[in-house]
C-alpha cells in the first residue's frame, strides 16, 4: 500500500447541517428572482402609499400643454386636457394595488376554504361545494358587477374588489379541490390522522403547505386577474372614472383616441405599469415555489453559484465536477 497518510485538518466547523428555523425563513431573500419581484412590487407599494406627496401635479388639473409627449416637465406626457399623465398614474397606483390585493386575498381565501373543504370532506359536502363553485364559474362577471355597482350608491374600489373576488374564486377552488382530493389519500395525511392530528390541523399543516405552490400560483393569477378585471372594468367605463387608476387613465386615452392620434405615452405608461406589477407577482411566485418545495430549494437558492461552477442540476444526469481529492490508491 503506497498510500499517503491523509490527516484531515479539522477545519469543518461543527454546525447544524441544516440552517436553523430563523435563517430558513429569510432564505428566500437569496433568490434573485423573488428579490427582483419583491423589489418591483415594493416600488409600487411605496408609490401607492406616498403617491399624493410625490405626484408632481394635481392629476385633474388642466394645463396649456395639451397632449404633449414626455418631456422634463411631464415625464409621461400630458392628456388632451393638459393633465399630467404621470400624476394620474402615480395616484392611480393605490387603487389598483388595493383592489388587486383585496380581491386577490379574498378570492384566494374563499377558493382555499371551499376547495380544500370540498376536497377533504368528500361525499355530499364535496358535491355541494363543487356545485357552488361551478355555479360561480358560470355566473358572468360583467353583469354581476353592473348589478352590484347599480345597487350600491357608489361602486367604490372595495365593492369592485369584492365583486371580482366573488366571481374569481371558483377556478382556484376547483384546482385546489382536485389536488386536495389526491393529497387526502396520501400516506402522510393518513399518518397524521392516525397520529391524532385534528382535522383542521391536517388541513392547515399537512395539506395546505403541500398546496402552497399551487395557491401561490393561484394567488398570483387572481391578483393579475383582479388587476385586469378592474382595469378592464374601468376601461369599459363601468366603474367610476373619478378615482384614478391605471384603467381610468387608459379609458381616457382610448376615449380620446390616443393611439390614433399618436399619443403613445398616454397609453404606454399605464400599460407598462400594469405589466410590471404582473411580472413582479410572477417572479415572486417563482421564488415561492422554489422555496416551499424543499426539493427545489437548494437549486433555486444557489442558482448563481451553480452557474459559476458550471453545474446544471438535472434529473437523471448528476453533474460531475472534479473538485474533491482523488488521490487514494
Amino acid at each position, binding site marked *: 500500500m503506497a498510500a499517503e497518510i491523509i490527516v484531515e485538518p479539522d477545519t469543518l466547523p461543527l454546525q447544524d447541517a441544516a440552517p436553523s428555523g430563523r435563517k430558513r425563513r429569510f432564505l428566500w431573500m437569496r433568490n434573485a428572482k423573488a428579490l427582483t419581484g419583491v423589489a418591483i412590487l415594493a416600488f409600487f407599494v411605496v408609490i401607492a402609499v406616498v403617491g399624493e406627496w410625490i405626484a408632481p401635479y394635481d392629476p385633474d388639473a388642466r394645463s396649456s400643454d395639451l397632449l404633449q409627449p414626455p418631456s422634463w416637465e411631464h415625464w409621461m406626457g400630458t392628456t388632451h386636457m393638459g393633465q399630467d399623465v404621470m400624476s394620474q398614474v402615480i395616484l392611480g397606483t393605490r387603487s389598483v394595488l388595493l383592489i388587486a390585493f383585496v380581491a386577490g386575498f379574498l378570492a384566494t381565501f374563499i377558493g382555499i376554504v371551499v376547495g380544500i373543504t370540498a376536497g377533504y370532506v368528500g361525499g355530499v359536502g364535496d358535491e355541494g361545494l363543487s356545485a357552488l363553485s361551478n355555479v360561480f364559474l358560470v355566473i358572468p362577471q360583467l353583469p354581476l358587477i353592473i348589478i352590484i355597482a347599480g345597487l350600491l350608491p357608489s361602486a367604490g374600489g372595495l365593492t369592485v374588489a369584492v365583486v371580482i373576488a366573488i366571481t374569481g374564486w371558483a377556478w382556484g377552488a376547483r384546482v385546489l379541490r382536485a389536488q386536495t382530493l389526491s393529497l387526502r389519500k396520501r400516506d402522510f395525511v393518513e399518518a397524521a390522522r392516525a397520529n391524532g392530528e385534528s382535522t383542521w390541523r391536517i388541513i392547515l399543516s399537512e395539506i395546505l403547505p403541500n398546496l402552497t405552490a399551487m395557491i401561490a400560483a393561484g394567488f398570483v393569477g387572481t391578483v393579475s386577474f383582479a388587476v385586469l378585471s378592474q382595469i378592464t372594468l374601468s376601461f369599459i367605463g363601468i366603474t367610476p372614472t373619478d378615482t384614478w387608476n391605471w384603467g381610468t387613465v387608459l379609458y381616457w386615452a382610448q376615449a380620446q383616441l390616443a393611439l390614433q392620434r399618436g399619443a403613445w405615452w398616454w397609453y404606454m405608461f399605464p400599460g407598462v405599469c400594469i405589466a410590471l406589477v404582473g411580472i413582479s407577482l410572477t417572479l415572486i411566485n417563482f421564488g415561492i415555489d422554489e422555496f416551499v418545495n424543499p426539493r427545489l430549494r437548494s437549486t433555486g437558492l444557489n442558482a448563481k453559484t451553480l452557474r459559476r461552477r458550471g453545474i446544471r442540476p438535472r434529473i437523471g444526469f448528476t453533474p*460531475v465536477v472534479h473538485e474533491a481529492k482523488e488521490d487514494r490508491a
Partner: protein
Amino acid sequence: MSALADQPRAFAPAKDPVLEITNLSVDYGYDEPTHVLRQVSLTLNRGEVLGLAGESGCGKSTLAYAATRLLPPPGLITGGQVVFTDRDGTRRDVLALDDAALRRSRWQDMAIVFQGAMNSLNPVHRIGRQIADAITAHEPRTSKADALARSAELLDLVGINPDRLRDFPHQLSGGMRQRVMIAMALALDPQVLIMDEPTTALDVVMQRQIVEQIADLRERLGFSVVFITHDVSLLIEIADRIAIMYAGEIVEDAAAQDVYRRPRHPYADGLLHSFPPLRGPRRELGGIPGSPPDLASLPTGCPFRDRCAFAFDACAAVQPELAPSLVPGDDPARAVACHLHTPELVAAAGFAPRPLPDRLTLT
C-alpha cells in the same frame, strides 16, 4: 485465526472487472455540502454478485445512484471515476460520458432497481408499455409487438402472469411492482444490475423466487449484480463478495463466506452477527454499541473508532485505507480498512502500530 475451513463456492467468478469505481466522492447540497461519499473505490467483476451492506444512511443508495449518475439534485459527484468495461474490452468512464452516450449505455450496460421501487413506475402507463419502452429505446428495430412479447416473457420470469401486461401500476401490489421493476431491469440483458433493496416489500417466498431467478439468470447470462440489502442472511446466501460500508466508506470487501465467517473489520462483525437466527437455539443479540457518525461533519481518522473496542490513538488521527488483511491464510484479494491491518501506515503517521488481537468480534 479462524478455525473454520474454507468452503468452496459453487460459482467462482472470473477476475475480470466490469465496473471499477475509484475514488468516487459525492456531496449533497451545494453551498454547505455534506460529503456523503469520500473517495470510495469498489470493483465489480464480471459475473459476480457483489453484496453491499452497511448501516442505514451510510451511502449505499448514494453509491448506486452516483455510479449510474442518477443522483437527484442536490446530489453532486465531486470526483472519481466509474469505469465500465464492455464485453469487447472497451472501457469508458461513466462520469465522463456525454448525455447521448450515457443514454445509450444505460440499461444495456447497467440497469438499476431503485429502493422504494413501488414509486418507480409511471402511474399512467401500462406496465407492459413501460418495459417495452426500454427495449425499443435501445433496439429501435424491435417492433412494438415484439417488445411487448419480450415484456411478457420478462414478467413471467419474475413470476407475474403475462396477463398483467395491460395493468396499470396501481393495480399491482407493492411486491408485484417491485418485481415489475426487476423484470424491467432485466429487459436488455444488462452487464451490470444494481439492485437497491429490491425485495423489502416482498414476502420471503417471493423474495426467494426472485433471488433464485436472478441467480439463474446470472448463471445463464453472465451479468454482474450489485445487491444492496439489509437482509444479511439473504446477502450471504446470494452474494459472491460482500462490501461493507460505513459512514460513506467501504470498510471491508471480501468473499461472502469469508466476511460472514471471518470478518476482519470490527464493524463488519457487528453488522453480520446482530441478526436473529430463524432456526436453532434462540440467542440474545447485542448489536453494535453507539451510533453512526454524522456524515456532515465527520471526525478525522477512522469514523468507527468511537464504537470500536479495538480503537487506539492512531484511529483518531489517521484515516484508514483499504488494505489486504494481515491475518495469515486469508484470501489475498480481500481488503479491510482498519489500522490493525496497516501497521506501516500507522507507523508512517508516527503512531505505534497495534498487533492483531486474537478475536475480532465486538461483543
